[in-house]
């Protein structure tokens, strides 16, 4: 199987993160610009909260619905890679994609070492991949 490289995986993750972070980042800027004495104005805080929800919505759609149903989030599509089940070779579905992202907490918990695991692992899996039995491969 042609596993995706660590650089491709990081790249895909960064693109997903940047896309999802744009609305909330914009909200933070607006809230900061309209704040007085270091306190957010009501309007600024509302805009920040709304744009934060837009970011969360983008994550739900991109990472879990799109990524789970097709194997390709926007970031993975840009890097020409896809996340599939190790056993079937098919996308794992939105629910399991959400659980997989939850499992990424374990990748961070142990000194972030789980994120580095694809550098030396034979199947280039993170801890989350091993738990969910998923692999990231060339599309």
């Amino acid at each position, binding site marked *: 199987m042609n596993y995706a*490289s*660590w650089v491709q995986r990081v790249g895909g993750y960064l693109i997903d993160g940047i896309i999802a972070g744009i609305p909330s980042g914009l909200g933070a800027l607006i809230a900061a610009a309209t704040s007085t004495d270091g306190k957010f104005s009501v309007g600024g805080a509302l805009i920040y909260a709304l744009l934060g929800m837009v970011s969360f919505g983008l994550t739900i759609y991109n990472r879990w619905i799109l990524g789970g149903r097709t194997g390709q989030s926007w970031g993975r599509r840009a890097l020409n890679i896809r996340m599939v089940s190790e056993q079937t070779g098919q996308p794992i579905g939105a629910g399991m994609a959400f659980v997989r992202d939850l499992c990424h907490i374990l990748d961070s*918990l*142990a*000194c*972030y*070492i789980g994120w*580095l695991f694809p*550098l*030396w692992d034979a199947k280039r899996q993170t801890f989350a991949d091993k738990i969910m039995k998923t692999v990231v491969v060339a599309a």
Partner: protein
Amino acid sequence: MRYYSVPERLGVAGLGAAAAAFAYPSIVRVTGFGLPCPLRTLTGVPCPLCGMTTAATSLAAGRPDAALAANPFLYGLAVLVLAGAGLVAVRGLGLTGPPRPWPAAGRRPFSWVVAGLAAASWLYQLHRSDFF
């Protein structure tokens, strides 16, 4: 794209980490966001790699003594990174052949060495944090 061996991948990733070590203090100063150890934050217990960020940024800032005190294993990692990066360069220049995968029997002792070093690093961090 050619196949990169594990040491080569670690070498390139390590060079990236070294570059990040130069930028990290400025990023923290500007944004206020650091990279906490999740295990230490949640449990108070340091992990085997604790002190590595401090050691790397200290070395990048030209303070080798502070780096040694924070995590002496950084120096071992630095040697591995330089060796891996050197291998990338040597292969890139065509001075040696393509990498050959290690047999499972060859990987096992190496895994034990890595596990032993991680255990030693953890003991050092526990001692540094006054656990014993």
